[in-house]
């Protein structure tokens, strides 16, 4: 290994295993469990009950199944997952309950993806939750201790989220080059969206499609946001703004195509924002206020 490669590996290792607060891991897992519970409760998985056996094209780890399970099994998976998610939020046998909730969503999402087309809607949630499922347990929300032992789940989650956004843009550059922005690509995407009939309104997609310059700008903006994901790995202050940018991106995809990427935005919100620090600040502020009130009374 050359000195340069060693230096890069060393830098990556130091970044990935940098110390983070123990409470942040607990906060992230709590929020992630809540998001998994929400997805299990409101997601599209119940629609699978209508899927005929001949249309079942299992993903790799379901390939041993000839057909999807009976409706009762799917509903049981959903209910068990939701209960486990609630228990994980409460911190009861955290590792086990979180794993059960995550596994329930993994299998339901896998059944959903076993229709001949990969569905990306749940993937960031599943991947980040997979990381957090392996993270240390038994931590308190306001635990301020810092260590690499609590750093790697936070940093790996950040890397996963940033990589997903960055490489989604990178794939566009590799597959299409500058034509993704400079050709009529996005106009055709927007005109095509109305043919799918899934968007809540055609007005937004047609508004963009009818204006060539705006279409190029929207395409450029999309690429800038996606490729700009690397910035969240370097600058902490960029993270909340990046969250705003991807939320706008996912909101516009819903408005123009009717595609639900809310789990992407939810996962990004949990990972990009340091909710533990915000909670600590709020608790400290409340404590300071209480002390100051007592001080006034004593005076």
């Amino acid at each position: 290994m050359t000195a340069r490669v060693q230096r890069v590996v060393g830098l990556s290792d130091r970044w990935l295993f940098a110390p983070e607060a123990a409470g942040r891991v607990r906060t992230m897992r709590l929020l992630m469990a809540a998001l998994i519970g929400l997805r299990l409760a409101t997601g599209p998985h119940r629609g699978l009950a209508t899927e005929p056996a001949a249309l079942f094209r299992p993903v790799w780890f379901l390939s041993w199944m000839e057909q999807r399970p009976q409706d009762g099994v799917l509903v049981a998976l959903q209910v068990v997952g939701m209960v486990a998610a609630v228990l994980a939020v409460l911190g009861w046998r955290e590792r086990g309950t979180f794993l059960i909730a995550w596994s329930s969503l993994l299998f339901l999402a896998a059944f959903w993806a076993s229709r001949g087309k990969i569905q990306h809607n749940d993937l960031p949630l599943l991947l980040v939750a997979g990381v957090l499922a392996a993270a240390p347990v038994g931590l308190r929300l306001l635990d301020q201790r810092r260590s690499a032992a609590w750093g790697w789940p936070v940093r790996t989650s950040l890397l996963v989220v940033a990589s997903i956004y960055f490489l989604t843009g990178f794939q566009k550059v590799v597959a299409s080059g500058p034509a993704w922005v400079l050709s009529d690509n996005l106009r055709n995407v927007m005109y095509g969206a109305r043919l799918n009939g899934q968007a809540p309104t055609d007005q937004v997609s047609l508004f963009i499609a009818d204006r060539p310059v705006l279409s190029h700008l929207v395409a450029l903006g999309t690429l800038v946001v996606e490729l700009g994901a690397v910035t969240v790995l370097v600058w902490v202050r960029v993270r909340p703004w990046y969250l705003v940018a991807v939320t706008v991106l996912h909101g516009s995809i819903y408005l123009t195509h009717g595609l639900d990427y809310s789990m992407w935005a939810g996962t990004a919100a949990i990972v990009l924002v340091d909710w533990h620090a915000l909670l600590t600040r709020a608790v400290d502020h409340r404590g300071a206020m209480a002390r100051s009130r007592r001080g006034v009374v004593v005076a």
Partner: protein
Amino acid sequence: MQVVDEGSMVSRWTRGCVYAFLLVFAVTRFAQFELFPFSAFRLFSEVRPDERHSWQLRAVDGDGIETEIHLSKLPRGTRHTTELLGGFDDLSAAARDEICDDWTQPLRDDGVEVSVVRVYHIVVHVRPDGPPTRRTLSYECGGAT
């Protein structure tokens, strides 16, 4: 606020697992390999032309009258399953019939007579001022009573 640095407490095993996870994550993405839940995340990555190649499904009754089958209006589990048409040539006639019958089951449940399903390959111009849709019959299948 008291902050205590506990130092490095990451075992070699944990370190190895983290790198293994990231390696699978990277390989599936760069090798364009779908290993659910790992993915290549190719979302709208290809330039879309103004013509869209797609499929049209029609249920045909005994008099030859065609009724449109809108998968997007059928139950959720059935949506996107026209993706299976990409591999239709590799399927047996019986397997094709089974899939086509599944697509028409909701129509049958509503009392519509279905003798056969016609699958057309269509070329749709996405622009409102574009030429009309062209279609070619690709398959005839199904017809279970």
